[in-house]
């Protein structure tokens, strides 16, 4: 197994507050790593540092052995690193299909071919397959803004997979999603992980969701890594119970 993502000693401070304080970990190919911890422990800041949305104050990020610290999010995305957002981030006026085409269009051709080539960048079929996969068929032509919260979450996740990513960082994919849809979402993510050989890092507060989806779980507290191991090990770790899980 090779490491898809290697994070070494990442630090990020905002003024006097150190949000992420020397975090190191790697993620192996095909793995689903869960990232948990109390609110404000630095999970999202860590994500933003890995993804180039924030510039880390120190440390290094490697994707497939290549140093990517300091790259812009769009460059990182074209290298195969994709993400979903904690809050809804779809394009409300575009249809579901258009949202997906948009999510894939920058991954092929160049500026010229995108100007002179076909309007859908040849992605209608791929988008429709993704729509079918996430069971959004009946909504394909609806504006994304008209979808329910849970459906928009599914679309947000689907968009992250349009470019055929190597690594996907999911920020609270289950937040606000109802129970039926949650089982669906977990099953879809597990299937994509198997079929596309995509590697995931998942931030989530829903313990049942994390423990059943992830092959490994990392716990953060106050900007540092508190524990990192198999779900059952982490769940039994006294320090984790103290800081996060509660008794």
């Amino acid at each position, binding site marked *: 197994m090779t490491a898809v993502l290697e994070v070494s000693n990442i630090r990020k401070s905002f003024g006097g507050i150190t949000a992420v304080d020397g975090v190191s970990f790697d993620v192996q190919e095909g793995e689903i790593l869960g990232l948990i911890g109390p609110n404000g422990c630095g999970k999202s800041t860590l994500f933003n540092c890995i993804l180039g949305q924030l510039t880390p104050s120190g440390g290094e990020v490697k994707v497939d052995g290549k140093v990517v610290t300091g790259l812009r999010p*769009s460059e990182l*995305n074209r290298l195969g690193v*994709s*993400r979903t957002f904690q809050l809804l*981030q779809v394009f409300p006026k575009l249809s579901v299909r258009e949202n997906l085409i948009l999510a894939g*269009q920058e991954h092929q051709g160049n*500026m010229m071919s995108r100007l002179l080539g076909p309007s859908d*960048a040849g992605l209608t079929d791929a988008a429709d397959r993704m729509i079918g996969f996430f069971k959004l068929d009946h909504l394909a032509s609806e504006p994304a803004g008209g979808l329910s919260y849970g459906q928009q979450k599914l679309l947000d996740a689907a968009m992250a997979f349009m470019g055929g990513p190597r690594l996907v960082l999911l920020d609270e994919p289950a937040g606000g999603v109802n129970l039926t849809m949650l089982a669906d979402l977990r099953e879809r993510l597990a299937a994509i992980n198997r079929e596309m050989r995509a590697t995931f890092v998942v931030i989530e507060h829903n313990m049942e969701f994390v423990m059943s989806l992830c092959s490994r779980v990392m716990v953060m507290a106050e900007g540092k890594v508190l524990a990192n191991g198999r779900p059952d090990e982490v769940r039994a770790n006294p320090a984790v119970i103290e800081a996060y899980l509660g008794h």
Partner: protein
Amino acid sequence: MTGAAKYWRIGFGVVAIAALIIVPMNFNRYGLFILSQWAVMTIAAMGLNLTLGYAGQVSLAQGAFVGIGAYTAAIMTTQGMPLVAALGVAVMLCFAIGWILGYPALRVQHHYLAFVTLAFSTLAFLVFRNEDWLTKGIYGISNIPRPAIFGFATNRPLPFYYVCLGSLGIVSVMVWWLIRSPWGRAFVALRENPIRALSLGIDTRRYTLMAFAIGSALGGVTGTLYAPLTQYIDPVPFNLSLSLDLLMMVIVGGAGFFLGPFLGAMIAVLLPEWLRFTEGYYLMLYAVAVILLLIYSPSGILGIADRYLTERRTKAASALRTVAKARLEAAP
């Protein structure tokens, strides 16, 4: 879109184009001038609609680009060069300046960006007025010739109207192509959610600059037609109020709608003429009409149509769902 709606749309388009070709044939000189002005200003408004309506970048400088185009055309054609050459130079010049003007948009947005473009607009006006050696300053440039197209002189109002209309047609096809291409989708992404766009691999920096450059280049196209249309230019028509007029055309017509600029320019150019019978009150009536429209529909005239169509579609969809549900329940 259903098949019938598509045919309606095509039919409407054909009738509108035929009317624009045939009806003006018995217009007088003044009527043709106004209609030519509509065609020409629509092009600049389409440019601003790309920058503002689709890509979401505020610009108060579109009038300055019309000025740059107009002065390029006036200077070059009075020196005996063909208008086509002036068009090429104006488009490249405005594209390049628009690209540069896009850089502030990478740092500032909304009203801050409006101020940056406002400053540029003032700067351009000062150049038109003060650089006598180039622009003849406040005296302006007169005797601007009209072009010969494939050997046909277009000095008379009707042929030149067709030049303007033809140019509008060509630009419309190009803009239509652009907005339905992946670029158009990326522009909308810039407007709706730049952070998400970045995370999907969209080079927001390059698309923002492109939106400015292309929009500005279309302002230049308008200028190159405006100079031979009026045959005399001075700095005054290209001051800030033209930029504001163009902004109003885009917003009143409906920003982000393909046909918005056509309607907006029609209202901004034609409505004051129709209201002329009210003599001293026409500007006031015009202002009130615009205020009322924007209160009723902040997304412009096409916003009203869009709202109506969406409502109808939602009703149709929920009716379909009810039918499907009833069938499911009826099934044993």
